[in-house]
């Protein structure tokens, strides 16, 4: 049932090629702070750039070692011709490394067109106004690239398609939360990943299909013991492995929080006559994003969601050298402790060694069991 999603993701180059057949453009993006709705409204296919675990060779001449794998891997893909199907790229400011990286990317990636989208750190009025001016410039960039004008009507339609996607994803999460759910934590990841490379309306059709055909499956033995775990991660590429290990150790992943995933779909973009303003509000205020102000928002959102889903423990899976997540960790830990939720941190680099990962996860789960008893 879900293998379709995996297939789509693994053949994402074909999806893009198919899209381009009709003369349309494809734009790669790096971060969840990118207003994809605008790209889609221009008739351009937005494609999230993923880590592919390439051997890093070319990038070593232009980036230091202590930059996250995601940025390095994307540049390696570009420098070795693996992103030639892209017509351009957009880098929304998410962290300090990404700002320095933009110049390196422009100089070395060979990308025909690139755009840096500034995202203010706060959502006060002056910042929001500035963000709108940034969105307007991004809009011109997209219009020039596609040759299509992004009218308010097109933008409103695009927001509707994306909101529908968010609602469907939310529904899926609800189905997932039943204890006899036939949807596993790693299925969810496949579904999310497919959504980041497909045209959203197609993803919506696929989601509608599985939701309408969904039935509880009492035969499925999810072996979902008593340990409820939530997983927070910026490394969706490694998250499925970790979730599989958790499930194998008898854990039940009751909540996830990836850059995409629950956080991404929880709130819809306000529909109204000022679509650009709605998008500004959404990306600045509604999506809690580590590294942006106020930190309390992401802290409360993560610990709150963990509490609501009765999680006993939180696994924090983060790519090495990711500043926004590393800075958030101590704050989340203090709050989680207050709520009686234990935390364990795993670096994405550790995921390569599954037996060791399993030992770590098992030990964590045992410590949680002791407390439950």
């Amino acid at each position, binding site marked *: 049932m879900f293998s379709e999603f995996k297939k789509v993701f693994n053949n994402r180059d074909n999806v893009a090629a198919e899209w381009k057949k009709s003369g349309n453009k494809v734009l790669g993006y790096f971060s969840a702070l990118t207003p994809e709705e605008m790209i889609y409204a221009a008739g351009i296919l937005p494609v999230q750039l993923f880590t592919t675990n390439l051997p*890093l060779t070319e990038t070593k001449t232009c980036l230091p070692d202590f930059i996250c794998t995601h940025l390095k891997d994307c540049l390696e893909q570009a420098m070795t011709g693996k992103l030639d199907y892209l017509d351009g790229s957009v880098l929304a400011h998410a962290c300090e490394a990404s700002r320095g990286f933009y110049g390196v990317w422009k100089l070395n990636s060979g990308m025909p067109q690139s755009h840096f989208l500034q995202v203010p750190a706060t959502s006060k009025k002056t910042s929001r106004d500035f963000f709108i001016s940034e969105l307007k410039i991004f809009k011109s960039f997209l219009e020039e690239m596609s040759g299509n004008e992004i009218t308010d009507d097109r933008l409103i339609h695009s927001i509707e398609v994306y909101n529908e996607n968010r609602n469907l994803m939310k529904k899926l999460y609800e189905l997932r939360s039943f204890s006899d759910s036939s949807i596993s934590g790693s299925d969810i990841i496949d579904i999310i990943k497919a959504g980041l490379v497909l045209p959203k309306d197609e993803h919506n059709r696929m989601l509608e299909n599985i939701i309408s055909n969904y039935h509880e499956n009492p035969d499925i033995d999810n072996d979902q013991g008593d340990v409820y775990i939530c997983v927070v991660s910026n490394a969706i590429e490694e998250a499925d492995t970790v979730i599989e290990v958790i499930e194998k150790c008898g854990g039940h992943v009751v909540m996830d929080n990836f850059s995409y995933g629950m956080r991404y779909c929880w709130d819809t973009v306000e529909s109204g006559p000022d679509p650009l303003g709605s998008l500004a509000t959404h990306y600045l205020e509604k999506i809690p994003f580590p590294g942006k102000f106020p930190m309390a928002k992401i802290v409360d959102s993560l610990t709150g969601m963990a509490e609501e889903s009765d999680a006993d423990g939180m696994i924090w899976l983060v790519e090495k050298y990711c500043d926004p997540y590393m800075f958030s960790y101590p704050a989340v830990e203090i709050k989680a402790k207050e709520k009686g939720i234990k935390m364990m941190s795993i670096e994405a680099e550790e995921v390569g060694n599954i037996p060791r990962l399993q030992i770590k996860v098992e030990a964590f789960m045992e410590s949680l069991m002791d407390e439950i008893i």
Partner: protein
Amino acid sequence: MITAGIDCGAKSTRAVLIKDGVIAGRGLVLTGFDQVKAVQESLEKALRDFQIIEDQIDRIGGTGSGKDSIINADIHVNDIKAMSKAAAFFFPNARTVIDVGAEEGRVAKVDKNGNPVDFAVNGKCAAGAGSFIEAMARALEISLEDMGKLSLKSNKSIPMNSQCVVFAESEVVGLIHAKTEKNDICKAIHDSMANRIASMIRRIGIEEDVSMIGGVSYNPGFLDSLKRELHLDKILIPEMPEYGAAVGAALVAGLDGH
């Protein structure tokens, strides 16, 4: 004129004697805790090899991470200079030289006189040095020699992208547990190390001929990976490459004496 070159490294100490531009004697001992003693012993071995006594040596050049322990040296020779001079001595057309020792990997670009004009050294991390391969051989319970041979039998590419040696080791352990073929693991290890050395070379810009000294040059698996990584047909390796830096030090001592 007879000059001696001593290279006191973290793992072993090597001495060579050069008489009128020809290598005439060699000696190698494990460095151990007492570097001064190792220096003396390696020199004595080389003297016995050439059958002369210490007084017949005109000048001594010392190099390596333990060069301060070479108390009888007339001159301390910088590691980059030693490897560059050695490369020019063995292969006058060499423009890029690689030296991979136990604790450090280095590359240099040399001019036609054997002077270094650019260089790079691997970071603090040991994943670009010989001791990494040794540690991995121990984990795989095979000899260093076998490691090179087995690696050549593999034609699989398993990327290892770990930033540091601790993670790399962990990745290897993971591969062992996942019942990956030893051949393929050996190749993955050599590939990952070759990748580190190659990226240093790319930083300085590759120029042929490329030559390599240091003990790791004996490892055919590593050389194979490095050639593939750099798209090279050949890497020039002198006879007994582990004495390379010592030869360079002896040459500099000779030049300096004139």
